[in-house]
């Protein structure tokens, strides 16, 4: 295999010897425009800690979360805080949540949590609220207003009147392709709360919403869906800089609807297929999304990972850390007004692992 030295240095990044290495292992986000400083936060999501029996948990998912925490601890300079994006447990059991929290306790930095359906539907968030915190809330950090929603609720009838036992309900919601499933929603109570919460915020304050479900309508059969997405989007419409970061889908997705940028995060546990790979039904995957590099199932960490988010002038750039695969960066581009993949956005730049699904 012949490759001239210059090309080789470029691809392996040995040229970085002269560059950022070793002052910062992460590109330092320098001060942005106006009074909105730039900063970084980490995002770990969808761990799906699954109990087999007693103190035995599925080794594969454990390793995913352990690795993400370990890598996140090596990030330099340290991110301001961390988010956990939901689905810490697989079936919402106390043992699973405790085991997940034990692994997360090794993470050096403040962590805030978003709830996922796998955490919620066994006891409707009771243990979560005892051990972790409220199911929806907001906070401010360096001039950015952050909102955490519980976006995996569903119709009352399905939640309270359909299932013989809490575990039956949890198993029904755990099955992604369940024909007897029920769509996610934020619900009127939270919409009312969100309206009041955002009323206090100036229109030029950047707003970032953390949600488990997409706050979009992408593919209903797999609940890549939020039934009242338009209502939430309407509340975000007045803001100059609005972003939604969501989990649940276990794959790279991104979109722009009006003024709102949408970005999905990866799971530490396992990847999910893109909706187009289910040939029997149509889907609405955002057209600008460049798919993640196709996974090699023989490497169980492939197409899993975690990410850190650079806030630049109030918009986001997500750096996906993908072990056994290639890292990707999807950043909001002020020139086009849309998020884009920093390397592969143009179709001519795609490589076979992105087109050979």
């Amino acid at each position: 295999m012949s490759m001239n030295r210059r090309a080789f240095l470029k691809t392996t990044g040995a040229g970085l010897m002269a560059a950022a290495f070793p002052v910062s292992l992460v590109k330092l986000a320098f001060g942005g425009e106006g009074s909105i400083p730039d900063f970084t936060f980490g995002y770990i999501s969808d761990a799906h800690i699954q109990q087999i029996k007693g103190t035995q948990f599925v080794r594969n998912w454990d390793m995913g979360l352990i690795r993400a925490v370990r890598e996140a601890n090596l990030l330099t300079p340290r991110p301001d805080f961390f988010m956990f994006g939901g689905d810490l447990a697989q079936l919402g059991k106390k043992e699973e949540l405790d085991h997940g929290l034990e692994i997360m306790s090794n993470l050096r930095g403040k962590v805030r949590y978003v709830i996922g359906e796998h955490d919620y539907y066994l006891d409707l968030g009771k243990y979560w609220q005892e051990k972790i915190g409220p199911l929806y809330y907001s906070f401010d950090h360096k001039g950015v207003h952050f909102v955490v929603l519980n976006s995996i609720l569903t119709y009352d009838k399905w939640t309270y009147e359909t299932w013989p036992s809490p575990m039956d309900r949890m198993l029904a919601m755990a099955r992604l392709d369940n024909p007897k499933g029920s769509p996610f929603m934020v619900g009127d109570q939270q919409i009312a709360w969100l309206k009041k919460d955002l009323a206090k915020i100036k229109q030029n304050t950047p707003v970032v919403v953390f949600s488990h479900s997409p706050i979009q309508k992408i593919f209903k059969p797999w609940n890549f869906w939020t039934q009242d997405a338009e209502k939430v989007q309407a509340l975000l419409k007045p803001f100059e800089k609005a972003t939604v970061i969501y989990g649940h889908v276990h794959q790279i997705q991104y979109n722009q609807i009006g003024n709102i940028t949408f970005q999905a995060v990866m799971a530490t546990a396992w990847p999910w297929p893109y909706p187009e790979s289910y040939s029997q039904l149509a889907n609405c995957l955002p057209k600008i999304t460049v798919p993640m590099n196709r996974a090699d199932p023989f490497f169980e960490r492939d197409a899993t990972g975690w990410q850190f988010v650079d806030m630049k002038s109030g918009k986001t750039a997500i750096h996906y850390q993908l072990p056994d695969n290639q890292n990707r960066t999807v950043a909001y581009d002020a020139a086009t007004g849309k998020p884009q993949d920093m390397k592969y956005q143009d179709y001519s730049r795609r490589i076979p692992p992105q087109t050979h699904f």
Partner: protein
Amino acid sequence: MKTFSSFLKVILGATAVIFLACTAFAAPVGLPPVPVPADNPMTPEKIKLGDKLFHDTRFSTTGEVSCATCHDSKKGFADGLPVSEGIHKLKGTRNAPTIINAAYLHTQFWDGREPSLESQSGQPFLNPVEMGLKDHEPILKIVRSDPEYLALFKEAFGKTGDQVTMTEVKQALGTFERTIISGDSPFDRYYFKGDKTAMSPAAIRGLDVYVNQGRCVSCHRIEQTQALFTDNRFHMIGVSSNQMPKNLDELSAAVQNVKEKGTDIAVLSNPQTSSLGRFAVTGDLTNIGAFKTPTLRNIELTAPYMHDGSHKTLEEVVTFYNNGGRLKETDPVPELLSGGIRPLNLTEEQQADLVAFLKALTSPEFAPKKP
């Protein structure tokens, strides 16, 4: 009549040369044709020159170390040591990889920091724990004045004396190394030639473990028509994970070491820096502790094993993999393991069979002599 016979002689001569060329450079059973860079075609003259350069101990500060010191043809083109020893028996941090079949690798060194045989060959001369030279000048001085080299370079490159540069030196070395190829092992004859008697029953059972429960084939590739036994990728399998930086301070120190000395010198100077593996080349956290998959051909001959020679026997290696990246089941599981490594639950018999299979990968020209 006379012109015809001389014409015939020319034709016959040319055919002989082509035949010789084809058979000399033809791929052995189980291997594809050797990749040859367009700017360095192979010739008998280059091979002869490269052979001499490879064995020349004058290219070191003590006059005692040559490429062949650590890549000894009698020791499977390695040196049988856990980590190699250069001038003054100075120890590095890494186990000498074999030259045999290195021509098929997409990158050279355990961390892939050099892209070709040619570019790799220039590095050990400059490493303080290998040949110890400050620069390549002492080499150039010798090859530009030594009478044998004057003639050999002229024959190989049409250049002599001051016309000779390190480019020609490295191209000759690369060409010589490209001839150190071997296939046609008992496995090759069994798998590609259909000779059912070529491997022992234990080795045949071991092949089944290798491609199924043992999962070895995922990285140490065997294919339908050829077997390189490597995927040319980098994986963190957990070897000596206790030497890796435990916290940000240790990581920053190792990284500082690389920046100050350059990757080649830094990684051989300090075990913790060495443990960074591919990360010292790419700076990518997902590569930390990852090393290149070596070929398994002739593995019987190149003990001890792994990037730091920390595994003495093939049995130890198999135990390590069976435990999912640990020598002892009670050792902690390395947190940054490649997704391909997990406990295998092999029985004692399966493990022994796997070792028997690995021993069937030795090519006949290197096979240990029977007493």
